[in-house]
């Protein structure tokens, strides 16, 4: 199985404009599930389309299996792609959709039936082969798209927001199915999404992109616990990380680490006075938003995410605290992560 690599990969759509993708260096390991995560317009889909061969890079190189594939057509790259809209062929039955890549790649005819049945059973759609795409539910369409992608046994799988057309309930089960599917086939997979929960749940590694630039590449734990800059810090996590400016340094802490002082077991902690302005009860937890009171951070808006146990009143000021080790430090000017340092809180 091939490893995908990009070297200084750049795409500029209009000359003189900022690139949609700027000098992306990336090495994807064999069998890995890599997620491109970013808001819309971050260049994640453009990057994927360059790897697929649908888009030609302005500069830089793409390697698949150690070979430069810049000038190869999509069919020569041995990749498979699942589109956001699934792009099933509406006039063809499910069987003919799945067999299409085999026909197009001149796989001997006597193998077609066997391969289609293998792919269909892998995705549990053996009973749907005679249907037309319009007769399928969203989840079934997605499985047909996956079957059409897997049937040619590609070197790399490219998935472009495959879950975003499903409703919330279906999305969760489809996500689990995708994870199971990846574990079973073990094909190197690149998955594009703007949904940080999907990225955290599925990715072996996550590459966070913004405005065509790679902000951070790491495991879900690394990007969540140790964000490289304030963009990554606020893009991952819901509600996002609290950021408080102290002159040239910006302090960040996650809402779930901002708790009643008496609940913070760590001895090394930073106390805050927190006036609650709004309480959202979400069943399993509270989301409190309010203002810090006193000290240098007076009047800064923060959010806390708390387990049930206490009750909180709007307008009341509580003693809250953050464990020292959960504080993140960023340079206010560059927004980049900096080493921890002592802060005069008062």
């Amino acid at each position, binding site marked *: 199985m091939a490893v995908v690599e990009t070297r200084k990969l750049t795409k500029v759509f209009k000359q003189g404009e900022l690139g949609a993708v700027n000098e992306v260096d990336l090495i994807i390991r064999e069998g890995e599930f890599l997620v491109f995560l970013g808001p819309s317009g971050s260049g994640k889909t453009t990057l994927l389309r360059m790897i697929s061969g649908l888009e030609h890079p302005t500069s830089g190189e793409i390697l698949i299996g150690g070979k430069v594939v810049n000038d190869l057509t999509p069919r020569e790259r041995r990749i498979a792609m699942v589109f956001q809209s699934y*792009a099933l062929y509406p006039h063809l039955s499910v069987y003919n959709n799945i067999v*299409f890549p085999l026909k*197009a790649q001149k796989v001997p005819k006597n193998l077609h039936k066997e391969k289609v049945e293998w792919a269909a059973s892998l995705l549990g759609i053996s009973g749907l082969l005679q249907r037309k795409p319009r007769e399928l539910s969203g989840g079934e369409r997605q499985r047909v798209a996956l079957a*059409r992608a897997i049937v040619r046994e590609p070197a790399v799988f490219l998935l472009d927001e495959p879950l975003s057309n499903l409703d919330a309930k279906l999305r969760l089960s489809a996500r689990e199915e995708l994870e199971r599917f990846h574990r079973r086939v073990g094909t190197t997979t690149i998955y594009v999404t703007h949904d940080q929960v999907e990225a955290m749940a599925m990715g072996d590694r996550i590459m966070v992109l913004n405005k065509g630039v790679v902000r951070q590449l790491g495991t879900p734990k690394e990007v969540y616990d140790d964000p490289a800059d304030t963009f990554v810090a606020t893009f991952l996590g819901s509600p996002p990380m609290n950021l408080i400016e102290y002159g040239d340094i910006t302090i960040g802490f996650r809402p779930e680490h901002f708790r009643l002082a008496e609940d913070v077991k760590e001895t090394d902690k930073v106390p805050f006075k927190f006036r609650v302005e709004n309480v959202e009860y979400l069943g399993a937890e509270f989301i409190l938003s309010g203002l810090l009171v006193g000290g240098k951070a007076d009047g800064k808006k923060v959010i806390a995410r708390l387990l049930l146990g206490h009750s909180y009143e709007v307008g009341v000021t509580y003693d809250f605290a953050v464990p020292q080790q959960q504080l993140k430090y960023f340079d206010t000017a560059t927004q980049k992560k900096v080493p921890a340092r002592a802060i005069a809180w008062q």
Partner: protein
Amino acid sequence: MAVGTAKIKSAGAAQSPMLGIAMFSPAVLYIVLLIGAPFCMAIFYAFSDARIGSNQLHFVGLENFRSILQSPSFRQAIKNSVIFTICAQIIVLVCSNILSIALEKPFRGRGFVRFLILLPWVAPVSLGTIGWKWILDSIYSVITWLLIWLGFVNRFTPPMWLGEEKLAMASVILVHCWRLIPFSTVILLAGRTAIPKEIPEAASIDGAGFWRTLFQINLPMMVPILSVAVLFGTIFTFTDMTVVYILTNGGPYDSTQTLPNLAFSQGIQGSDLAAGAAISVFLVPVLILIAYGMLRVAHRAEVN
């Protein structure tokens, strides 16, 4: 609140029938007076012995149809109408497909090229055809001149574009194509842009080349709109008399005679209104069947 809405609704309902009638009555009048009435008269005349200048009118049953079916001119005209229509449709479909593919992707001056391609459709048929009559003229033909200059034909025996049977048929087909290609191209262009762009992209990722994508993906997805283009093209060609009337008037020796032109020459120029009516009514059932078939194809493809 509910009462208020109900009141407004009833006021609207009281107004709208009159307004509605006023809005669509011009269209109804137009259809009834200029299409419906002549059509009914034609059916009526087809079963009578009406002649120009005669005030006698008798019902003669199917006599007119029997007599036109025996006429060699009529049989030749039916054959020609079918040949012209089918040949023109095939050529038009191929050419407009190529044009629509070429015009789909943006390039410098695409708007201007699209405008040029649409011009034949905008120009009046008769003017365009008169232009072609000159282009194909036996003495002044620019095509002949060009072919002589290139050394393809002998200057002493130049081709008679409108005077030899085979060439005259080819010329009529050519002019029909020239007239229909713009319309067909615009329709196919619309059909092509209506295909979501991920679908041909998925096909290219699946390994399909240009031809496979064209014949197995794009064209099948365009069936509804293709059948509309073919339906309109068929009816335009079948019922058109301008091109033949101006270019050849059916000649030489009826070799390019078509039903509309025959109906005109027998019914109006030959004063035999009843025969003309019978000729022109003859194909209505056929055309209705063709239209019905095409619309069914379009509908089925759309549902899929």
